[in-house]
């Protein structure tokens, strides 16, 4: 760092005035390096998103070429009046509520514990992070077998200690919590690693100073650890909420939206309408509405982060 400021100083005469100086020698190669990514991004993400927006105003079908008949706001009206859409939205929000607090709290607790382990910390890091690298299909298959009625591991384990087991994936009341449990097991590692990294950034002098002042371990956690991890918590929470809202794989593979549609998330409803029913125009309208929901959630979180930063 210090060498950089020295060289900047020697080149000072070049940095004169005006924004035209932004386009100095470093900008063009930077643009050249960014160009492939920007190109692919526009082609495969921005472009289709705009096309989707256009499609949502037509009755586009997967078995007919072109945009088909104009529907105006008909698709949006149908979506807002569709009981299936609202119930799938509620299922998604319920899933988010079931998974986000455990993923934040458990991630923090486990990181705290793993941080204090003297020897063998590498083992705990591996153990808690390993599930995260599994593809969703593998995770789903493992948990389908764990949840199998009659033959599954979980049911037999609970029976062996005298407890009964619910009908994990077959009971509408238990299906979503079961999916939440398997999701927490699967994605905990990511939050765990983020918290672990955040914990290691806290200087130990703070703890020592607090201990000298007579603070107990719980007080230290409450007054030092948690406040200094506020940034990490916000990051984890935002990522978690947005990822939970976009849930699809677990439902699709483990319950197919069942039993009796009780776990169908918004993305799965969009998939059912767009691909099973061939109604891509309607599915695009649903996607746009869902996009607005996710945008609203993100905006809310941005507001919270802004207020947090102004406090600090």
């Amino acid at each position: 760092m210090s060498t950089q400021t020295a060289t900047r100083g020697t080149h000072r005469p070049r940095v004169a005035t005006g924004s035209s100086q932004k386009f100095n020698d470093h900008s063009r190669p930077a643009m050249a390096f960014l160009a492939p990514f920007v190109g692919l991004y526009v082609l495969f993400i921005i472009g289709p998103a705009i096309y989707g927006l256009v499609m949502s105003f037509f009755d586009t079908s997967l078995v007919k070429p072109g945009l088909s008949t104009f529907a105006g706001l008909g698709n949006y009206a149908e979506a807002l009046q569709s009981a299936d859409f609202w119930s799938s939205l509620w299922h998604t929000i319920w899933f988010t509520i079931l998974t986000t607090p455990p993923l934040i709290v458990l991630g923090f607790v486990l990181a705290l514990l793993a941080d204090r382990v003297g020897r063998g910390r590498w083992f705990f890091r591996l153990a808690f992070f390993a599930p995260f690298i599994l593809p969703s299909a593998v995770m789903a298959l493992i948990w389908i077998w764990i949840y199998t009625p009659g033959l599954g591991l979980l049911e037999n384990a609970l029976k062996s200690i005298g407890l009964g087991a619910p009908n994990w994936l077959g009971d509408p009341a238990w299906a979503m919590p079961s999916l939440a449990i398997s999701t927490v097991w699967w994605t905990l590692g990511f939050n765990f690693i983020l918290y672990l990294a955040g914990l290691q950034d806290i200087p130990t002098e703070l703890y020592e100073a607090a201990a000298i002042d007579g603070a107990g371990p719980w007080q230290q956690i409450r007054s030092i650890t948690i406040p200094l991890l506020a940034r990490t918590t916000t990051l984890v929470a935002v990522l978690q909420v947005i990822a939970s809202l976009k849930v699809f794989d677990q439902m699709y593979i483990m319950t197919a939206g069942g039993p009796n549609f009780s776990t169908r998330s918004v993305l799965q409803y969009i998939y059912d309408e767009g691909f099973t029913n061939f109604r891509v125009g309607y599915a695009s309208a649903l996607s746009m509405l869902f996009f607005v929901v996710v945008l609203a959630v993100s905006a809310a979180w941005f507001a919270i982060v802004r207020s947090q930063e102004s406090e600090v």
Partner: protein
Amino acid sequence: MNLPLSSHQGSGRGPTRRTFLKGGLAMAGLGLGGTALAGCSSDSVASGLTVSRKETNSVDFWNLFGGGDGVRMQEMLDAYRKTHPSVGLSAVTLAWGNPYYTKLSLATLGDKPPDVAVAHLTRAKTLIAADLLEELTPDALATVGITPDKLSKRAWDAGLVDGKAYTVPLDTHPIVTFYNTDICEKAGLLDSGGKLKPLTSEAAFMDAMAKAKAVTKTYGGVSPINNETSTPWRIFQSLYSQLGGEVLSDGGTKVVIDEDRAIKVLTFLDGLRTKQLFPSSVDYEGSIAMFANGQSAFLFQGEWEISTFQTAKTPFSMAPFPNLYGGANYACQADSHTLCIPKQPARDDKAFENSLGFIRSLLDQSDTWAAGGHVPSWLPYAKSPAFKKLSPQSDYAVAADGAVYDPDGWYSGSGSDFEIITGSAIGSVQAGQQTPEAALAQMRTKLQTLADTASPI
């Protein structure tokens, strides 16, 4: 000392990172150029670059057969390659259900369709309505010796649209009864020939299940409920059709479920659970496991699982789905796999000829296909003594004559939203989560919504 400015490490120290990368890139470029030059004359590179089938004389075949019947299909494809070495066969297997049909329709719309494709008869109706399949005129089919009298009448007639044919049926796959011969013998359910005595009433069925349960000590019969909507629908449809009931009419725009008949069937299915003859919570793999290891004497599923149990060496045989209500009008839910030619972007007589020849070749190998459990539609084989000797396939072949296909509708067919809606409601009754009346009301409402929606075709 005058150090060269272009190198961090100093001169004479060997290759720098930049020179190494440059050299590597050059060598890779030479290598690519070399292979391109060498391969330029070969057909594969040419076809890869130009995607031109005219020069390569090939057949592109798409199917959705994984699992047991997928293995049989591979055998049939290998046999075709041996008998037609000049034609380059390229076969792709895609996942069953939506992933297959969306790809097939989009590929056809995008002018890159396969030459021949498999399609369920009920789903092919949608493709035909969307004008995505080539018509197979009687003359065209006759050039390879395929005539309607050589194909199963029921499957052939069901596939016609306005009297025109767009598909050639390969098989009919009905839902059937698997029964464990050892357990059924102990329970006294077999006749003198060692075959299952026909169950022709609700009471007889319940009685048989109770006797079987006494032997297995767990359950009499099983059919999957969890994470599965096709099987509950198939069981319901078989029994409901035996009563003469219909679900949709007018091309799917009207819901015509008969309240009394539907409640009768749903109540019966509910009774199997309350009397604990069938488990109320079991998924597809679990139902297979339960039958294979003798926890259940009966399994009600499609015939394609025959290979699973032959491999597991379960002592079993098969029979048509029980005729509880039908009497003389036997009915059981089924669909047919058909072969079709998607609309090609340009008329190519040679490719069309190859495609028809390929279809004929698959029909000729109906013996291999039937070994996988499906009931062949190709009558020269189906009526032959060889098939009659094939057991247990020949025991349930008669079920194909009573096959009831899913009703017409843009949202109907194998693996469609129609099956998801009906199967979910029926499954909830089988699982004890809803009363028959509530389930029927739910089915009616959801189907009505789809019936009222304009068809995307």
